[in-house]
């Protein structure tokens, strides 16, 4: 297992290197620089700005400097939009909000999805099952950027139960987390139902039943472990989806998180902030995928840590 993790970690290094390199050169080779939008920049100011950010150096020097700063100090540079702030500061400031949103959404997705899926599987082909299954299908087909505004319309504007924007009190957190979580809850419910149905027909469940195990024990102790496998392999893509989904959610609900910052920085051509955010998201997604892979093998002894 340690060898498996070590090998996967080693594999991550070239992948991250390629991401950093590709993004770096992509950002540099596009028309339009970070200081194009400034009103009336004189050539002197421009030259000073470029010197400040090291943009006057030859490209390969910029690249090696950038890499060196990351590897040696974890330093992602200064924002080209907000000259007084470093990318590290901005990330430290905004990331916790996005992580909280992502965490809440994932929790909602897991709790809602797992319980709905188990109930649907246990009561298969009954009304309960049909209701759960059609809700799940609806959840998958209504995109977050339709669902979010609709929920705001109903629960914030008409009923006034929760707030429509911001991220200060708990009323602010309900609708965004719910919007982002429901899509994945629907996916998890479908996978749990399918996985549980497959497992519930197997011999070892019949054996457990024959030995007089209670229904609850059969479901939670015996069936769930096997039935969860498809859900766990879905978690990797789900986490990536929740992280990128937060761009839209943070825009709709005006949440001061990193997702909205990323979209803004892309519009502002804030080179260093874009690069830094992409690297951060890549690291997050890759490491969470690794965790998911480890959990998967741990749950299913048939898979070996190869």
């Amino acid at each position, binding site marked *: 297992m340690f060898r498996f993790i070590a090998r996967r970690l080693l*594999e991550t290094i070239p*992948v991250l290197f390629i*991401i950093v390199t590709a*993004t770096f050169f*992509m*950002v540099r080779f*596009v028309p*339009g620089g970070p200081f194009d939008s400034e009103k009336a920049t004189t050539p002197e100011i421009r030259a000073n700005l470029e010197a400040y950010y090291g943009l006057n150096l030859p490209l390969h020097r910029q690249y090696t400097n950038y890499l060196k700063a990351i590897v040696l100090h974890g330093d992602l540079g200064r924002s080209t939009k907000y000259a007084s702030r470093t990318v590290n500061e901005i990330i430290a400031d905004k990331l916790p909000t996005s992580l909280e949103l992502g965490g809440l959404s994932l929790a909602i997705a897991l709790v809602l999805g797992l319980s709905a899926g188990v109930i649907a599987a246990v009561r298969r*082909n009954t009304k309960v099952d049909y209701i759960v299954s059609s809700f799940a*299908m*609806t959840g*998958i*087909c*209504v*995109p977050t*950027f*339709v669902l*979010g*505004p*609709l929920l*705001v*319309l109903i629960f914030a*504007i008409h009923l006034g139960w929760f707030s429509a924007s911001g991220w200060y009190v708990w009323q602010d957190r309900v609708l965004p987390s719910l919007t982002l979580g429901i899509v994945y809850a629907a996916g998890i419910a479908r996978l749990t139902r399918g996985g549980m149905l497959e497992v519930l027909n197997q011999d070892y469940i019949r054996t457990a039943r024959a030995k007089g195990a209670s229904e609850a024990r059969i479901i939670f102790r015996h069936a769930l472990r096997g039935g969860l496998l498809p859900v766990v392999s879905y978690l*990797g*893509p789900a986490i*990536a989806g929740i*992280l*990128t989904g937060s*761009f*839209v959610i943070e*825009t*709709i609900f005006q949440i001061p998180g990193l997702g909205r910052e*990323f*979209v803004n920085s*892309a*519009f502002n*051509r804030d080179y260093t902030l*874009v690069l830094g955010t*992409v690297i951060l*998201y*890549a690291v997050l*997604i*890759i490491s969470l*995928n690794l965790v998911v892979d480890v959990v998967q093998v741990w749950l299913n002894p048939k898979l070996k840590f190869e």
Partner: protein
Amino acid sequence: MISPSSEKLPSANVAPAQLEHGVSPWLDAWHRLRRNHLAVFGGVVVIVLSLLCVLGPLFSPYGYQQTNLENTFSPPSASHWLGTDQLGRDLLTRLLFGGQISLMVGLIATAVALTIGVIYGAIAGYAGGNLDRVMMRIVDILYALPFTIFVILLMVFFGRDIKLLFVAIGAVEWLTMARIVRGQIMSIKRMEFIEAARSLGLGTPRIIFRHMIPNILGPIIVYTTLTIPGVMLLEAFLSFLGLGVQPPMSSWGVLIKDGAERMEEYPWLLIFPGTIFSLTLFSLNFLGDGLRDALDVRAAKD
């Protein structure tokens, strides 16, 4: 999903005499598909909506860009069936025209993904050995990347050009197709008819494209159908962020974005585009699921 009616499965009541006039597998699949009400519903909705989107704007008295500042935010009425937007443009016309764009992005970007995925998967599956291992490892690694972010970067830095949108989305969505095609190719690679083709001296490309691909069309069709809604969702996602299709051009994502900004006073601006878009995704998913059952494609993930 077959409803638990008295209807029996086809194999249960086939008399030996009937077995003699065989039915082609495609016809057989067609019969199975027709019995699946949800899939039929999905197919009909997709066809009707596509026709409406293509033909509708031709018959509309309004142009999709035609503004009328004296009649902004008009609620649905006899002259504007779905009302008008902030510039007095007819929402129905914009919705149908936007549908053309959204469906076109769906089809073209899926075609890009299909081409890359099929060629890549076929080469990996047919070659086998180390080449296959390296190629599939690359797919595994790409799977783990935050690809939406790269599409956003591409769209931001290289201008929001609709042609680029096709390529960027297509370049992201081919991974699953490559995996499926590879698995299918591997499963038929050792069959006699391939051996026969090889012993006749046919070249590798000919064997792959003339003899193997036609035999795995079923899974390819199913996953193509299921890719289209994913692609359309990505287009709408980007347009919603302002990074996809650009106004005054219309697409379902653009309309949803406009609607969401003004839903408080004028909810129909959000509700109509949102409903049509969700209905389309719904229908495509049902159709894809139905095709999967009809063509009997199991979850061919690897």
